[in-house]
């Protein structure tokens, strides 16, 4: 059972890593002018909810399976994701808004955030991998 939890977490984490990389690539494309703000934001906004769900599931799973440490590690990031999603002003087109993304250094902060998440997910990846192997061995 333990192993199943971690295998699932591992897969989910992989997906999140890919997603982070995708965010970074798309944002840097925008930075370099390869795509315009409108298409960049519509691409990214599509993945905001999947990312949020993906991460929330892992967090909840850890809580349910009573892995307190991993749960607490994931909690701040999950909270941030939800907070960010909820706080989008009613007039905006999503977390990424094409009319604002070039203002006030938003692009940079989005980029920074994506980088931090990538690092976090990589860390989690190895943690899950280790835990999974441990669980498999124990089984």
């Amino acid at each position: 059972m333990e192993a199943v939890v971690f295998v699932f977490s591992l897969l989910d984490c992989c997906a999140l890593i890919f997603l982070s990389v995708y965010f970074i690539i798309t944002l840097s494309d925008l930075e370099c002018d390869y795509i315009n703000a409108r298409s960049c934001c519509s691409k990214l906004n599509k993945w905001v909810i999947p990312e949020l769900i993906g991460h929330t599931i892992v967090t909840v799973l850890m809580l349910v399976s009573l892995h307190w440490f991993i749960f607490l590690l994931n909690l701040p990031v999950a909270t941030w994701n939800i907070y960010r999603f909820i706080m989008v002003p009613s007039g905006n087109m999503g977390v990424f808004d094409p009319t604002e993304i070039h203002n006030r250094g938003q692009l940079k902060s989005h980029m920074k955030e994506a980088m931090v998440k990538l690092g976090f997910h990589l860390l989690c990846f190895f943690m899950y991998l280790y835990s999974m192997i441990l669980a498999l061995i124990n089984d």
Partner: protein
Amino acid sequence: MSAPAESPHPAASARIPPKLGGATASGAAAPAGPGPAPHQQNGPAQSQMQVPSGYGVHPQNYIPPSGHYPQGPGKMTSLPLDSQCGDYYSGLYTVPTQNVVTSNTANQQPGAQHMYGRGPPAPHIVGSTPGSFQGAASSTSHLHTSASQPYSPFVNHYSSPAMYSANSSVASQGFPSTCGHYAMSTVSNAAYPSVSYPSLPAGDPYGQQMFTSQNAPTVRPVRDNSFSGHSTAIGHPSPLPPPPSHQYHQQQSLSGCSTLSWSTSGLPSTQDNLVRNHTGTLATASSNPTNTVADSLSCPVTQNVQPLKSSPVVPTVLPGASSTRTPPAANRPVEPVASVTQPSELLQQKGMQYGDYVNNQASSAPTPLSSASDDEEEEEEDEEAGVDSSSTTSSASPVPNSYDALEGGSYPDMLSSSASSPAPDPAPEPDPAPAPAPSAPQPSKMAKPFGYGYPALQPGYQNATAPLNSAVPPSSPGYSGFQPYAQQYPGMNQLSSSLGGLSLQSSPQPESLRPVNLTQERNILPMTPVWAPVPNLNLDLRKLNCSPDSFRCTLTNIPQTQALLNKAKLPLGLLLHPFRDLTQLPVITSNTIVRCRSCRTYINPFVSFIDQRRWKCNLCYRVNDVPEEFMYNPLTRSYGEPHKRPEVQNSTVEFIASSDYMLRPPQPAVYLFVLDVSHNAVEAGYLTILCQSLLENLDKLPGDSRTRIGFMTFDSTIHFYNLQEGLSQPQMLIVSDIDDVFLPTPDSLLVNLYESKELIKDLLNALPNMFTNTRETHSALGPALQAAFKLMSPTGGRVSVFQTQLPSLGAGLLQSREDPNQRSSTKVVQHLGPATDFYKKLALDCSGQQTAVDLFLLSSQYSDLASLACISKYSAGCIYYYPSFHYTHNPSQAEKLQKDLKRYLTRKIGFEAVMRIRCTKGLSMHTFHGNFFVRSTDLLSLANISPDAGFAVQLSIEENLTDTSLVCFQTALLYTSSKGERRIRVHTLCLPVVSSLADVYAGVDVQAAVCLLANMAVDRSISSSLSDARDALVNAVVDSLSAYGSTVSNLQHSALIAPSSLKLFPLYVLALLKQKAFRTGTSTRLDDRVYAMCQIKCQPLVHLMKMIHPNLYRIDRLTDEGAIHVNDRVVPQPPLQKLSAEKLTREGAFLMDCGSVFYIWIGKSCDNNFIEDVLGYPNFASIPQKMTHLPELDTLSSERARSFITWLRDNRPLSPILHVVKDESPAKTEFFQHLIEDRTEAAFSYYEFLLHIQQQICK
């Protein structure tokens, strides 16, 4: 898909709208008819067949296609644009910074200069030179542009001279001036320049040359001719150096000076200038031996002689020059006068200027020039002179007609100088005469050019810069801008003294740095309007620089590092008015538009020419080749003078773009009117006014033979009008399926204006009466906009939406969010942001299809402008708001609508536009303000651009600017004119870089800073909260004043001290806090507040400042003292009064100019003569409560008052309405709330505000 127009669309109900007469009937029919009832048949749309009784005409049934017509197309045409945009900037300044400093005086001498020009050598001056060249060139260009100047040839020279002189001053050493000249010459040489010269010792070669030139003046003309011939360029190289030592120069100059009428006293400098000019020309000519001769000048004697000869010629020249210089003009004139007598002085002055300016732009190369070297820069201008005459331009390739314009001169607007310039010149002219003539004689020396080892020019510049702070006292327009700094330069001081008149030399500190104790100063507001500070550049660059009306920076001295900027606590940003109506604009037609290959900067006056064939971009410093075509100068019809091309002589130019700049063939002008015809709208009665205005202005709509126009109306359904040519009357098609909007006959809804004019007129005559009996109260704005988008997307164009209430049906419906009880809340103001993203998304779709939506909101109740405005904000439209509009109950609003419509319909318009803003490497833009969509980091997508649109940009300094002394900004606006031409309007602004905090403060443009802060505060209010924004505004004052306080060591800690440049800052910020957008505690309707915010975002600076801080004048005692003449009218100029009730006396009458409203306040005991003569009533008691016009009375005081008001009204995007307010009428509260220095229940008085700030600082 499109069904033939006639074929009935199921969906659409076809009504035949009656022509005019039938209107009513039709209207009635509609409602009754099928319209509403959805008929199943045709899908969504219902087909209604009503034929109005009267109108039987075409009752067709539309069958319509329920489907949506594919309009197609859209795609992002814009993309191309972008690319284009990118193109715009080609290299600018890179060039060497040169010291432009040349003194004005120099300019005067211009005539002589030509001779100098030859001085190719000069160029070498290198670093500095280049700059100067540019400057010179630019100046010259100006001259040229201004056709007026007869002198043209001379002119150029002259202008350059000025520059030279400046240089010389820098040199300070006796010779300096000469040096300057040299530099100039180099420049002129054209392009060469920059590079090599650097080291030239300033003066030597040039100086000689210059001298010669002076001497030679007469000769010059000749030379010029030859030059034009071409080879000039060639010659240049050689020029460099030969010459003469500085001493010579000086001598020459002196002699020259004496001869010269120029007062430029600084003879040397003047001479230099002349020389430069000459050189420039000569150089360009290259061929000229003459140049050499000039160079040889070395002998002062000859020079003198020459002057005599030349003198006649010179004069002419001078004028031209002077004109160019205008800005500095004041100084210049003086100089000239003096010059004759006191050459030396002139020189000095020049020197000073140089110091200030710091020419180096990017200048890479030359570093340390000797001071002398600086002077060199200036040369180039000469070319221009030639230009004037040439209007012909046409010659060969490039520029067609436009040249004429060019020649005509610089844009008057810019600098204002252009216009004025001519006038000022006169003085100079006379002077010049003497000196110039002589050129011929002294050829020889030139030869040696390069030799001079002026070390690096740059250093000189730098120095100069630092000193400079030219803070222009706000009030004094006249200031040349030179500051006191002179001290550093010994020579300068002397000069300065001589110059005296020009600037405040005497003061140890620049005027702008004079500490002002705010709490002690009772009359902080100057009596005259506040002008933009002039950047502390040398004269050449200053003359070339972009007009502050189009392009302003909050700091005219750019801090070297972000750390310095942070220390100053001032906002750094640009305020743009790129599409302003200009009376003169050089238009350039050329097969190749010269741009930097790496950063795509357009070539501009601030680039440096390394040699004839290469130029260095002033933004990215890349060295580019000069294309073959660019070697030919259409203005002078000469070859080999790339630096004299109009692109390099004017900082505002317009290019006719080739097909490379098009993604698709230029679109025709397309106008679509979307009109609310619900009960509410009909009740307000705007349709009558609109249709009337349209009928009157139908022929004046900008456009060509392809112009198309269309109409839609909507209430709970959407009505289209088929105006296809051939119909006997307009045909109305009704689509009632608002959930899935489609176009009944996509082909015939937008019709050619000329082919269907009769039908259009019929419709406009019928429209106001068609809906008089409507009972439909709903408004389906969202679906109507979607339909408009579909209709417009194949072509793009302008959609004008008239809306009178909250949209209540279909997509985009809105709920009322305003709580009237919260209107005067001091705490939280909610709902400043949009309630839905529907309008924003639609706006972005429109923007992608090159469609702009302009919103006219005429409502009497809350209409959620915050949400509706998004449709215009992001599609680059404009927003008009008429609260409580009613055509009979509120005649002043009706009149305002009428006037606004007239301006709106007839003003210039640009379609499918994009604007890119580029700045020198090291600076970056991070936030944009205005109505547009930012498509990529520096590209603004503007579906339409109007002359009334302003923009703001915030900047940050990403890399230290330590290796450059100048930074440049370039905006390039690519648009399709209403005639279907693709055009690019380019503005380039050049500013000095400074390294000390004091200099940063000296260069603050307080109006620009306040406008930028207002824009930032709007963003803050929406993204955070109004109270945050208010706190941020107060903190901006507190931080900047306390930062300044900490730089002044001998501070009296008890006092609130501000530099003179910032003395109005607290007042303006207080005004902002009391502005509708940001005020709290006073009842303000949400829509009013949001509209004020929209205005702050998109108004150009001049108009915005009036909104923030109205002007108050006393008008019961207008006199002609200080009056100006405009179009044969005498316009009195009463002094500004501070906005306080203490200034209002019962005996007076006051006019308050709030930008969009004028109030005339009549005191209770106002003189009956005034009331009778101006208002046309016998006494105070008989004045009516509502009076919105001044009668045309045949009395002197009436005439004065009216001409003053008319003058104030001219060129306002929003035509102001006039309210006559009696002292005792209830309307006076509106007037009194603009008296921002007074205390109100909810806000501080000015004095209290100062105390509050002081308290905050002391914390």
